[in-house]
């Protein structure tokens, strides 16, 4: 069953006087429980695709549906609520809030829920345990290594138990050991916790970790073998 449905999506940007088309009439589905790596050259629209799915950006035309909800038709306020419940987002540069501890960073999405303080604390502790940082709860981002920061970011992305986890170059700033730890964690989230994952990456090892690898080139999605799966 398709969790993410992209139908006839076109996206273009205005760059000075010119209009740059990223996709024209893109169609593709991402199944529930899938783990997909999106690869492709810079400027091919990989991150834009994640932004469209997360409702951070709007398509020029076409529809994006996630878990039955039409993302592209929601108001900004509806999108905020929906994102809090449905999406976990991980950035290349971690983007933890430097003034908050690991625990407070992970708890951030839960502040938007009706959970009690005790319930929030329990779920935050669980998420940090899942990423193997149960002993770093009171550390600030500056006191953590890059790999640890990214794992805190992943804990923040999963703490609200979202349907879909979106990652934009999650290993882009990590050394090989830390990358390995993060990739193992992502695989575990997909295998054990049945999380649907879409990951943009330039890293071949990260792509190998995924179950499906798609290449985005000139507005066309191709499977690794060169078979076109979306246009």
């Amino acid at each position, binding site marked *: 069953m398709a969790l993410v449905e992209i139908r006839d999506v076109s996206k273009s940007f205005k760059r000075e006087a010119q209009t740059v088309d990223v996709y024209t009439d893109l169609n593709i589905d991402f199944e529930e429980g899938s783990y997909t790596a999106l690869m492709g050259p810079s400027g091919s629209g990989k991150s834009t695709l994640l*932004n469209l799915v997360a409702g*951070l950006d709007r398509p020029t035309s076409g529809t994006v549906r996630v878990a039955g909800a039409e993302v592209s038709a929601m108001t900004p306020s509806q999108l*905020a609520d929906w994102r*809090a419940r449905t999406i976990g987002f991980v950035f*290349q540069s971690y*983007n933890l*809030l430097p003034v908050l501890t690991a625990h407070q960073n992970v708890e951030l*999405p839960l502040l*938007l829920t009706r959970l009690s303080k005790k319930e929030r604390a329990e779920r935050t502790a669980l998420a940090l345990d899942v990423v193997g940082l149960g002993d770093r709860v009171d550390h600030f981002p500056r006191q953590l290594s890059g790999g640890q920061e990214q794992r805190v970011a992943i804990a923040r992305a999963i703490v609200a138990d979202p349907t879909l986890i979106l990652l934009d170059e999650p290993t882009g700033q990590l050394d090989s050991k830390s990358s390995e730890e993060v990739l193992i964690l992502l695989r575990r989230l997909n295998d054990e916790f049945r999380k649907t994952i879409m990951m943009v990456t330039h890293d071949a090892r990260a792509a190998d970790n995924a179950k499906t690898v798609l290449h985005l080139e000139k507005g066309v999605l191709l499977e690794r073998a060169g078979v076109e799966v979306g246009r």
Partner: protein
Amino acid sequence: MKFLPLVLANLRRHRLRTILTTASVALALFLFATLRSVTTTLDGGAQVSSASRMIVENSTAFVIPLPMSYAARLSSVPHVESVTWANWFGGKYGDGKKFFAQFAIAPESYLAMYPELQVPEDQKQAFLKERSAALIGEGLVRTFGWKVGDNVTLQGTIFPGDWTFTIRGIYHPTVKEYGDESFMFHYDYLYEKYPDRVTPGWFIMKIDDPNAAPAVAKTIDDEFRNSTAPTKTGTEKAFAAGWASMWGNVRLLMSTIGMAVVFAILLVTGNAMMMNQRERTSEVAVMKTVGFSDRRVFGLVIIEAAVISLTGAVLGLGAAVLMPIVTGFGGGFLPNFHVTPGTLLVGGVVALLLTVASGIFPAWQAAKLPVVQALRRVE
């Protein structure tokens, strides 16, 4: 409440900046409340003045005295029940750093004229009997530790020489606005030393009908219009208001300075809030990505501005309330100087306006921040 740790964490990001901004707000509200209290204290004196008492002063200038012979003529004016008089002494005690008002009074008639000044009967009799006796307010007891029976020597400035008095009574004002830091002694004691110079500074009259005040004033001023000491007669309330006006247009001056200070601080606070927001562009984008709505982001920035403004307000207004208690500010010149609840309320409103004015633009910017562009700048 669950967002409070987030707000406080953001305020701790640049502790020094937050402390300095809060201190600026506190200083602005301290000055605002103190300056406003000068005018409310002056107004307060006028408000509590008796409607049945009138003051006769020299129309040329308040500091020019009037002939003693006027006392009898004033007593014969219709509606006038009683007359007393007083004179400004203008001495200093010790190094003179602590100012308090001193008056030479006609003892019996003056105390009868001002029932608001309560004196124990035995002390009152002792004061009335002795020519060099002094009657002091409770405030001077607190300030100097004087007690009944103490001899106190003042150095005269208008009437030169050392003037030694024996404290025979301590008064308690039933109306705070009358102040409790006055030093009163017998007019005759002053007159004896300077018979050629001393005449009453002003007369105080009690009338039987407050509604007759305008007619009484006209009768008296008409009678003395062509004399060597023409008079200006008015109600005690008008006299108190006139005393305030001697300071110049105090209200305009004080309110102008107060609002200028507040406006300057608005710019400082607004600038600090803008800097905070500019530095947090990526963080706001991340918060929106995890599900914070525009409205919630707007609210969080406003709450940050409110924490700064309201903390500053509590500190500044609190200091303004405590200042006259701790330092004795006001004392002789501004009896019962204090910050009124009205001033605290206005200060609170100013703090709220400061919150809105300093926070609204950065909050609006944060709320309208396009997430994708902000993230692209960071990534």
